[in-house]
């Protein structure tokens, strides 16, 4: 048996980002198949355009279009891509100085082995089949099969060196294409973690698997913590001596949740209460059911209602909820120091 309990957690959200005028111009350009760079006050042509000038700190307002072809200025091989990267097979990340720009931009380069990449090689933008105003509208860079290369006879676009021209966003677009400036984008973020409970918490959750509620006592202040702690918050030492607690206790305080929210697992209205188990020195949060919410009181005596044994796991959810015992309410003086 491992020392601690572990379980996967996924933290996932599709973030909505308003992009502001400068990035909006860049992303709108991408959607239209144009590469919009900024001319900064230090004389550089930068893509993606910085939102604010690095020297004057003013909002960027001088835009130019640069060419979809350029030169690799540095690259690194990605042998084991991670989720979300432009390719799920090995590829290269490259810095590419586009013709017309004076600093390189970062993107993926579609090559099948490191032998096919070199600093100084010519590459071009490969546009995504569908574009929506995201950096991924550029699917990747790809090598240019230039006329002086030994190739298969397929002629690439060669290396255009257009005059820099001022960028003029237009509302003109191909039929069926979305129009208007890009003002917001959606960027999904999903991360997988392996969560571990502390050794003390693990002992608590394993106790629940046997239908037992196990607290631990702080060796210094002798208070009983449930769940037990890796550090007693008063003394900064781990709780130690195990104490089996009753599954009856007293409601110290509570609230009635009427509000629905994303990710909520319990249907409102429900009572979320601090329950001070008999024998414990700290209350813990659980649900109070089997009683109308408006009848729940501070000081109410309650007992755990366990789920059927065959549904138990190493989780606090083995206790479905707490319900009133019918005993007289506890005196305020017996729990007021726990508020």
């Amino acid at each position, binding site marked *: 048996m491992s020392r601690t309990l572990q*379980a996967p957690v996924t933290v996932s*959200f599709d973030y909505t980002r308003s992009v502001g005028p400068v990035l909006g111009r860049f992303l709108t350009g991408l959607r239209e198949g144009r590469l919009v760079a900024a001319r900064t006050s230090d004389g550089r042509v930068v893509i993606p355009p910085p939102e604010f000038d690095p020297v004057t700190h003013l909002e960027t307002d001088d835009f130019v279009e640069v060419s979809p072809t350029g030169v690799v200025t540095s690259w690194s091989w990605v042998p084991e891509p991670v989720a979300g990267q432009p390719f799920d097979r090995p590829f290269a990340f490259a810095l590419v100085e586009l013709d017309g720009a004076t600093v390189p931009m970062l993107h993926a380069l579609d090559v099948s082995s490191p032998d096919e990449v070199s600093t100084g090689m010519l590459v071009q933008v490969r546009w995504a089949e569908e574009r929506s105003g995201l950096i991924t509208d550029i699917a990747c860079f790809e090598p240019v099969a230039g006329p002086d290369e030994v190739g298969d006879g397929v002629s690439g676009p060669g290396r255009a060196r257009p005059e820099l021209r001022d960028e003029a966003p237009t509302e003109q677009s191909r039929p069926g294409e979305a129009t208007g400036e890009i003002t917001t984008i959606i960027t999904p973020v999903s991360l997988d973690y392996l969560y571990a409970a502390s050794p003390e918490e693990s002992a608590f959750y394993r106790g629940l698997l046997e239908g037992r509620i196990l607290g631990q006592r702080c060796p210094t202040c002798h208070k009983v913590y449930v769940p037990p702690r890796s550090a007693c918050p008063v003394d900064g030492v781990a709780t130690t001596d195990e104490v089996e607690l009753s599954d009856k206790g007293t409601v*110290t305080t509570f609230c009635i949740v009427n*509000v629905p*929210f994303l*990710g909520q697992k319990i249907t409102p209205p429900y009572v979320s*209460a601090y329950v001070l188990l008999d024998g414990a020195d700290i209350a813990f949060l659980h649900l109070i059911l089997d009683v109308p919410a408006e009848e729940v009181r501070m000081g109410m005596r309650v007992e755990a209602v366990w789920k059927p044994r065959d549904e138990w796991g190493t*989780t606090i959810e083995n206790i479905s909820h707490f319900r009133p015992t019918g005993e007289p309410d506890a005196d305020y003086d017996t729990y007021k120091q726990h508020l």
Partner: protein
Amino acid sequence: MSGLDRLDHRKNLAAVIGVGQTHHRAKREDVSMAGLCREAMDRALADANLGRDDIDAIVVGKAPDLFEGVRLPARYLAEALGAVGKPLLRVHTAGSVGGSTARVGASLVQAGVHTRGLTVAFVKQSASIAMWALSVPVPFNMPVHAGAGGYFAPHVRSYIRRSGAPTHVGAIVAAKDRQNALKNPYAHLQNKDTTVESVLASQMLWDPIRYDETCPSSDGACALVIADEDTARSATSPAWIHGQVMRSEATSAAERDQVNPQAGRDAAAYLWKQAGITNPLEEIDAAEIYVPFSWFEPMWLENLGFTPEGEGWRLTESGGTAMDGVLPVNCSGGVLSSNPIGASGMLRFAEAALQVRGQAGEHQVDGARRALGHAYGGGSQFFAMWVVGSERPTG
């Protein structure tokens, strides 16, 4: 000798000479994160009559990175914030972070390490849903919690039980702060029809907390320029820092007082001592207190020592915390009217500075000389506060 609470030292003086904030809204769809920060920063610099190159250190404060889905965003923002080539710090102390960030910025000057610091705190909460970001489920646990409201509501109930406060006191706070917000053009909520009755009639969300007794979720930013004595002496109406403090305690501990936490009481006691204040109710002219749920006004009045324990609600009920009361609280409309989480704490510190600088506009308290800025975070466990004054501290 205890490491805490030295009063025998003499810090370098520091003062707020520039204040800037955004127009706080549910969604600021017109700006990026950088644009949001710059809106506040540019206003603070203009107010201080300084350029970005006059600043020699930048401190960024932000609550959880999960709100925007950007890890340690201060670094990606470095260029846009004008921090390149300068020292850049990122502070995170939960909800109190805006206050803590102002404090760190002040420390840089008070230590004599830097001359002019710029602090900025922001949140672009519309990028996600704050309640989701704060409630990522923990394995093996019970998802009983329901966001910040669900967390704090039981403690509000405890307060009401303990103090015997009439149940409409929360509504008095909410109505007052929403009316105050009408005098603050930057405030998010501008509901001129809010009254005690309308608050009481609003939906009970987390009983005993009603919908109108909760703060909104806002996009927004706040920035401060904090300068040394030499710079401040030549500035227009500096807000001198007379005292500042931070205290922390555990989220939960056996027999921890969650209604009137010791960290807040300790912090306030040290703060008043530093500022030479013996009767805060009389000597503080305006207070900006972090009140995300209406009942926290009376709770913090007690915690801060403005009233004896159990009597904060009497001050509120008597109108003592209104604009024309003995202690005007949250003349800006407070967190109840604008809540860019993370920036909210700095806004409290900033609004206190505006009051003693005489620059609070329509929500100015006449002749305010000393003001409190207050922030708290986590499970009522992290506290940051300062007292600013119109006069240079002496002695």
